[in-house]
């Protein structure tokens, strides 16, 4: 019965979303508080219904109810419980349900939000309802996760073993919470365009939502990248694959939006641009869903691809984004900027940030869609990682070099000389760091040393800003501490995010340049040298896992002195269901570095004994690559908890009452 119950709940959710859209819009048009209140109620009820349906699907997975098609295709009785639950969003249908769960969840949060002017809120709830109708409608009619099978199988097909991993169980919820969080920003933008008024207050209301979505997206992408790093065993963490780019583009736009919304809030400038970014952010989220699910682009991460339904998703994308941008074209001329600023000012640095991020997004989009462009010219092919590295690196460097000056400059007209003076120490340290890396690390690589220097510059700049606010070295230390304690969380959040960016840049530059790789066929007792380390394959034994058989290797890693660094245990797992083989990478953390070992396939050595292809890498400073974005996400959450965001809304409410 659960599946039927869930089906019913989905149908009800569709109806409620429709109600939410119509009643809220009508309430706004007629200025009727009863109607808008009913619209908010419908939003809450729609969320409750989708939650019930989602619960039903998870229940079907937990109880291995193979009479449900989705469960039969993606689950198995022998699968560990965590992956039974995670299997609920491992398929196309399940992931769309997760998407709708997030969408209606944000709708409900919006309905509960206080302090918004009623007209703007009614239109935002209505737009969110319209998005709900599109996506829940798609799910109910084209991608139903709870369809029954006429003759249920005894055992299920199981989830793709590569997906049976803790990081990847958590990756889709975070990523979707981030993607779909941008839908609220989209709805706010549409509502503001209909109202024809965008002011500082609007930007202040949008910011927390954008911040939440951005933080969740940051964590989601990091989890995905971390998964690709240790689960796929290819010895990399970013491959510029279309699916990865699909998540990067909304992130870039959301980052730009966060910064431009600050300008709109504090200075009343860039209003039209902020709205445009808000529309772009969710459009790119939807484009990502379409690219990932339709298979129009060849991707290494293609899961649960279905071209026919992809076309439907494209239709939804066209309808939602098309109406949004049409509205923008029609109403944007109404939006007037209220203030001007000098070439040297905080606004200018934020404008440069936005231009760079927009340019990077465009170039990534061009590269991602290039195969389709070639296809239209009757050719097949695409662009690889070198394209992205050539284009994105230098562009981002422009933004990174200017970034530390931004928070130190005053609004409207900044004091260039004073800022140069305050950043002198950070700049000096960064140059020294770059020179030291260039001189000490072999083989010499000027570009990577420059990259590490840029990372140090970002961190130093963020620290300088905190010191500056604390009047460090000028006031007494007691006074400085008092000032530090008094800093708003938003300021700490921003500094933490910028430090995180610096940490990431350092890691990415260092790891990219000085990664070492060694691959050899080893029989038991054989060894290979990886940089200064020696890897010895001690033994390979058979081991039985919960739902797989494994060849379990023991690799002894020794340093130049002969001391054992660690005993790594890479595995090669063969899953009985589906017959798929995966590699379990063994990672020895050494400070900031990882020694990364993959046990490859079994083959014959020259003397006829069994041998295994052992692939190994040293990823220096790789921990920084994952630590940096984590700090950025934490910075976002810290800013979100800033009392000013709530107080500002509260004061506003008080003023209106």
């Amino acid at each position, binding site marked *: 019965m659960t599946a039927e119950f869930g089906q019913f709940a989905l149908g009800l959710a569709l109806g409620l979303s429709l109600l939410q859209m119509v009643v809220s819009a009508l309430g706004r048009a007629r200025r009727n508080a009863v109607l808008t209140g009913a619209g908010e109620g419908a939003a809450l009820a729609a969320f409750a219904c989708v939650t019930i349906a989602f619960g039903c699907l998870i229940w079907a997975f937990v109880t291995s109810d193979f009479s449900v098609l989705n469960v039969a295709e993606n689950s198995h009785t022998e699968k560990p419980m965590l992956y039974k639950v995670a299997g609920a969003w491992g398929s196309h249908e399940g992931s769309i349900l997760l998407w709708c769960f997030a969408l209606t969840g944000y709708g409900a949060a919006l309905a509960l939000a206080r302090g918004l002017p009623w007209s703007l809120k009614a239109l935002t709830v209505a737009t969110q309802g319209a998005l709900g109708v599109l996506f829940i409608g798609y799910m109910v009619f084209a991608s139903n996760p709870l369809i029954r099978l006429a003759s249920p199988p005894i055992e299920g097909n199981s989830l*793709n073993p*590569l*997906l049976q991993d803790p990081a990847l169980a958590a990756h889709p919820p975070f990523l979707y919470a981030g993607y779909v969080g941008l839908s609220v920003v989209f709805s706010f933008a549409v509502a503001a365009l209909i109202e024809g008024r965008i002011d500082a207050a609007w930007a202040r209301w949008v910011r927390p939502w954008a911040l939440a979505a951005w933080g969740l997206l940051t964590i989601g992408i990091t989890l995905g990248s971390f998964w690709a790093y240790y689960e796929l065993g*290819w010895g990399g963490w970013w491959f510029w694959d279309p699916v990865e780019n699909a998540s990067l583009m909304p992130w870039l736009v959301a980052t730009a939006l966060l910064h431009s919304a600050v300008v709109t809030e504090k200075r009343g400038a860039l209003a039209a641009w902020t709205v445009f970014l808000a529309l772009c952010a969710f459009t790119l989220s939807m484009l990502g869903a379409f690219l990932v699910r339709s*298979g*129009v*682009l*060849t991707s*290494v*991460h*293609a*899961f649960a*691809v279905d071209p026919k339904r992809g076309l439907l998703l494209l239709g939804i994308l066209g309808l939602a984004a098309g109406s949004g941008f049409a509205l923008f074209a029609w109403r944007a001329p109404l939006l007037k900027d209220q203030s*001007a*600023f*000098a*070439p040297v000012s905080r606004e*200018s640095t934020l*404008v*440069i940030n936005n*231009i*760079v991020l927009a*340019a*990077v997004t*465009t*170039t990534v989009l061009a590269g991602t869609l*290039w*195969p389709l462009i*070639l296809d239209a010219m009757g*050719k*097949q*092919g*695409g*662009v*690889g*990682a*070198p*394209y*992205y590295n*050539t*284009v994105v690196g*230098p*562009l981002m460097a*422009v933004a990174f070099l200017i970034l530390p000056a931004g928070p130190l400059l005053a609004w409207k007209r900044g004091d260039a000389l004073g800022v140069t003076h305050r950043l002198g120490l950070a700049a000096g340290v960064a140059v020294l760091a770059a020179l030291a890396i260039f001189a000490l690390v072999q083989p010499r690589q000027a570009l990577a040393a420059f990259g590490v220097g840029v990372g140090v510059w970002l961190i130093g700049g963020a620290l300088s800003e905190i010191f500056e606010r604390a009047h460090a070295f000028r006031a007494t230390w007691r006074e400085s501490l008092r000032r530090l304690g008094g800093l708003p969380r938003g300021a700490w959040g921003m500094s933490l995010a910028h430090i995180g960016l610096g940490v990431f840049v350092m890691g990415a530059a260092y790891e990219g340049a000085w990664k070492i790789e060694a*691959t*050899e*066929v080893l029989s038991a007792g054989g060894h290979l040298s990886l940089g200064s380390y020696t890897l010895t394959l001690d033994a390979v034994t058979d081991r039985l896992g919960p739902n797989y058989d494994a060849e379990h290797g023991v690799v002894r890693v020794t340093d130049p002195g002969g001391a054992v660094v660690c005993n790594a245990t890479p595995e090669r797992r063969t899953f009985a269901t*589906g017959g*798929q*083989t*995966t*590699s379990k990478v063994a990672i020895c953390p050494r400070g900031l570095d990882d020694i990364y070992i*993959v046990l*490859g*396939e079994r*083959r*014959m050595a*020259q003397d006829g004994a069994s041998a295994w*292809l052992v*692939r190994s890498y040293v990823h220096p400073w790789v921990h920084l690559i994952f630590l940096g974005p984590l700090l950025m996400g934490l910075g976002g959450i810290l800013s979100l908890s800033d009392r000013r965001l709530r107080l500002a809304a509260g004061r506003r409410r008080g003023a209106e009452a």
Partner: protein
Amino acid sequence: MAFLPRSRTARRRLVLFGVAAPILALAVGLTLYGLRGSISYFYTPSQALTAHVAAGTPIQLGGMVRRGSVAKQTDGGVTFVVEDHTSHSPVVFKGDLPDLFREGQGVVATGAYDAKGVFVANQILAKHDERYMPRELTKALKAQGEWRGEGQTPAYGAGNTSS
């Protein structure tokens, strides 16, 4: 600064343009430069033959892995034959094959032909999902009338056939 326009709006526009133009010019320049160096076209073995792909030109080679052709060398290299309906290419690859690499199934390799007509692959496109087939390959095989539906191997893939 007498040469600046007097209107504040016009002045701000000028500043915005002054900031945006170099960055956008840099972006366009880098894009064109990046595209020039890293576009790689997709060919099946017969398409590569008719297009006379020069040795050393980086391309993507797609087709079916001929059954029985995979030979693993003791130095860690592996050789196999990629075939389509009318032609075939020997491929050498040094490294670990992706987990879903199978004889008789589709594969996309990136690399270049050497002077002897052997395709030297530096990357074999890995997939996470055994049902997934790269789009270019699907299309090329459909064009040759060899397509038997999603996830199926073409008829000639079964058994040890010649081309």
